């Protein structure tokens, strides 16, 4: 990680960057997000296969630096979130410095070391191991054990009857405790007032009842339609283990199938929602 530290030091020393959003390791060898403000902090920066967190979430959460730009350490897949935020006027490309990391896959369960089983599915189909749109590219690409996509969970799930799907989600959503960890962990959930916090009118019941949970999870998935960049942080953050990525991946498929669109690929790409095509399908409209 020498290179990462050197670059970060230089950026902080020259005040090109006010701070750098990166990863560090604590004394229990947990890899966790870390904000480096000083060159001493920079010494603590690291990157490894447990650097699963999508740090783009901090771009809209942290106060802007007094001086200099925001430096951010990012995997290729995380950069999609950064580009997405640019597409949605949340940040300007010129206000950030992206230190892109060549990525050799990250873990699913952060408490266990990386192995074939404990790896994110997105990694086995990753096209961005070498990041795009980065100011720097750090680290070396190495072969890594990919989890086999033995089965297409999405397809399997859709094979179920509507009845069975309803039962499935009823059971899952019943668990939801409305802690909103999914929202807070999501780099694209940057609203200053989430619709569930709007009480006049209360479109979505704030009570964690199954009904309110249905509304919350459906509308959240809808608001992320054509916007989710598939980092899976929502699912990882969920304390009651609701398989949220199923919903988001389904919406991602729709965006791909119907509109051949993926969010966060190019900064100047017109967003999916907010634009239209006169030939959008309407076979479902009477």
């Amino acid at each position, binding site marked *: 990680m020498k290179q990462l530290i050197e670059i970060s030091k230089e950026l902080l020393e020259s005040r090109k960057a006010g701070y750098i959003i990166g990863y560090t390791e604590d004394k229990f060898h947990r890899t966790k997000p870390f904000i480096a403000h000083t060159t001493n902090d920079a010494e603590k920066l690291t990157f490894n296969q447990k650097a699963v967190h999508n740090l783009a979430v901090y771009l809209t959460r942290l106060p802007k630096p007094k001086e200099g730009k925001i430096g951010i350490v990012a995997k290729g897949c995380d950069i999609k979130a950064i580009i997405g935020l640019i597409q949605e006027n949340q940040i300007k490309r010129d206000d950030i410095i992206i230190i892109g990391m060549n990525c050799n896959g990250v873990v699913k369960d952060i408490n266990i070391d990386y192995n074939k089983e404990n790896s994110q599915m997105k990694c086995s189909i990753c096209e961005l191991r070498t990041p795009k749109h980065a100011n720097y590219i750090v680290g070396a690409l190495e072969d890594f054990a990919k989890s086999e996509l033995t089965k297409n969970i999405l397809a399997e799930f859709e094979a179920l009857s509507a009845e069975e799907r*309803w039962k499935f989600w009823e059971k899952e959503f019943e668990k939801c405790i409305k802690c909103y960890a999914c929202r807070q962990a999501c780099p694209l959930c940057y609203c200053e007032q989430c619709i569930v916090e709007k009480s006049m009118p209360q479109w979505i019941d704030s009570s964690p009842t199954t009904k309110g949970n249905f509304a919350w999870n459906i*509308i959240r998935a809808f608001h992320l*339609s054509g916007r989710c960049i598939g980092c899976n942080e929502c699912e990882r953050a969920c304390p009651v283990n609701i398989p949220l990525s199923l919903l988001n991946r389904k919406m991602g498929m729709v965006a791909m199938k119907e509109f051949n669109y993926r969010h966060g690929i190019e900064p100047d790409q017109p967003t999916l929602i907010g634009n*239209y095509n006169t030939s959008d399908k309407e076979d479902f409209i009477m």
Partner: protein
Amino acid sequence: MEEEKFEPKITAFVCNWCTYTGADLAGTSRLKQQTNARLIRVPCTGRIDPVFIIKAFEKGADGVLVSGCHPGDCHYNTGNFHARRRWIFFKQLLDFVGIDSTRLYFSWVSASEGKKWVDVVNNVINSVRAKGPFLGYKNLNKETELPLVNKN
């Protein structure tokens, strides 16, 4: 309660310029239709937010109908194009979570299509009546409902 024949409750969100006016035309032409639909007038289908539909189901709708101007006829030029794009996502999302999305209907009815409006409304009412009450959502309500004993 169970004895009496089931009459579906239908909420219809319609745009002011095409469908609402088309429904007016159905009226002036005295075209008869069933009484189950309740219209909510909005300026444009572009104004219709999927949370309306979710909320309607929560509040006991057995079916929801959304209707507006034909593509290209939108009084506001593009409102219905943006709406249509949202619906493509929303309908498939409901399907995915197992909400019977066949209880959610979409149609284009212009100001001149009074007849079409009547047919659409009757179709929706008939097919929802055939499906029966939307138990899926109604059961969710039990959690938060006033215990029946004190209901009346």
